[in-house]
């Protein structure tokens, strides 16, 4: 088994296995709310395949990243609920 990957989600350290997508890491950290909609409703992934854009999070300062399509990399800093 390869080494776990250490990332940060909303400032808290989270360890995941290689091959984990960012969306899964966010769920594993117990965050149900990925983003806030125009009317400030909580939203999370819908399509799981990069089409609906509901799972957008900020990764290393880049906003609007599709968390369902991006694999976790060591040291990633992820922010949700923006």
């Amino acid at each position: 088994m390869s080494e776990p990957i250490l990332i940060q989600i909303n400032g808290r350290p989270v360890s995941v296995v290689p091959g984990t997508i960012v969306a899964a890491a966010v769920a594993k950290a117990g965050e149900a709310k990925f983003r806030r909609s125009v009317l400030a409703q909580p939203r999370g992934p819908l399509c799981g395949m990069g089409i609906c854009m509901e799972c957008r999070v900020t990764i290393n300062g880049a906003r609007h990243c599709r968390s369902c399509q991006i694999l976790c990399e060591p040291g990633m800093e992820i922010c949700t609920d923006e």
Partner: protein
Amino acid sequence: MSESIFEFEVAVVGAGPAGISAACAAAECGRQVAVIDDTPWLGGQIWRGEQARPSQSQAQQWLDRLSHSGVTVLDRTTVVGAPAKGSLLAEHANGPCEIRWKKLILATGARELFLPFPGWTLPGVVGPGGLQSLVKNGWPIAGRRVVICGTGPLLLAVAKGLQKYGAKIVSILEQAPRSRVAEFGISLLRHPAKLIQGLGMMSFTAKMKFGVWPLKAEGDDAVRRVTLTDGHKSWTEDCDFLACGFHLVPNVELPLAIGCQLENGFVRVDRWQTTSIADVFCAGEPTGIGGADCALTEGQIAGYAAAGQTARAEALFAQRASWHSFRAALAKAYALRPELKTLANDDTLLCRCEDVSLGRVRQFSGWREAKLLSRCGMGPCQGRVCGAAAKFILGWGMESVRPPVLPARVGSLITNANQK
């Protein structure tokens, strides 16, 4: 920002079954081929996870064949536009790139159809295929209660897949009547491989109900329960996830941006899988929802045709005709019931990107007017979710697309403009 230009004799967009088989076929005829995919993995949605954890021999055979074919794989590469004939504009983590082609094969696949109902925007309400994809890449599901509803053979496949990862499947609710699905089952006698797949899922029949659809989902910050109906009575089931999808709709945005004509919502192709645009081919779900086997056959035909090997393409016509009969049976069995058009109230959101309600959208005469005056369909998904729903609920046509076909960084568009 780095900027790069790639040139290929054959460019294939999409690395699902259709794209992989098309790329292999063309490369094995000696062509210089690239397959371009948005994701970091190969296999599309249907074979997602097969690279990391092989479980299907068909997927393994094709992934092996691809790895020995000499095809260049451009993964994590999102095609955002087709600025000129023979050219695609794409984005990679390192920046924008231009991909030049002599022949282009579009294998853009399909997405799930989502229909609005009260509560459908709550976190935890996901597509069945979507949840399966998330779980394959580490989404925690063990011990969680999942209600699966909507329509299509995917519901059972997802139930089986999620159970392997430890999910508690509460129920599987198919909107189509039992009689129509049974008829479809009988038609599978002509496709023994599909029949065997179907029989492998029989262990779930106790949890499956036909002629049932969702009325509403409830919860505070995430879904907690769903109300269902069979048209006579309604009841509530508790869940941690509601996996709800109404079969598939084709991804035709890129074909449309290139100018390909559609027919009944699908990309129109001739017997060589050529679209209405010369040198542009299309294979798999964008030409009709027929599943992976159909896509593999169409992909090979497109690949051979693009390489000019018409005899090799022709040898697959009978196989394709057989899969097209399966495709027709699938469409008939899982046709959507009209009651599904009335699930959303006037205050239910139709457009999830811009938070526009169905009641607001109904005030307009058509899709274009609704977009201009309400911003419906103008958010980051560019109408991929609400457009398909509005087409079913309101009967609106929306067969036009504007570049970029997916949200792109301003830098990519500037690079492209500077090259002109």
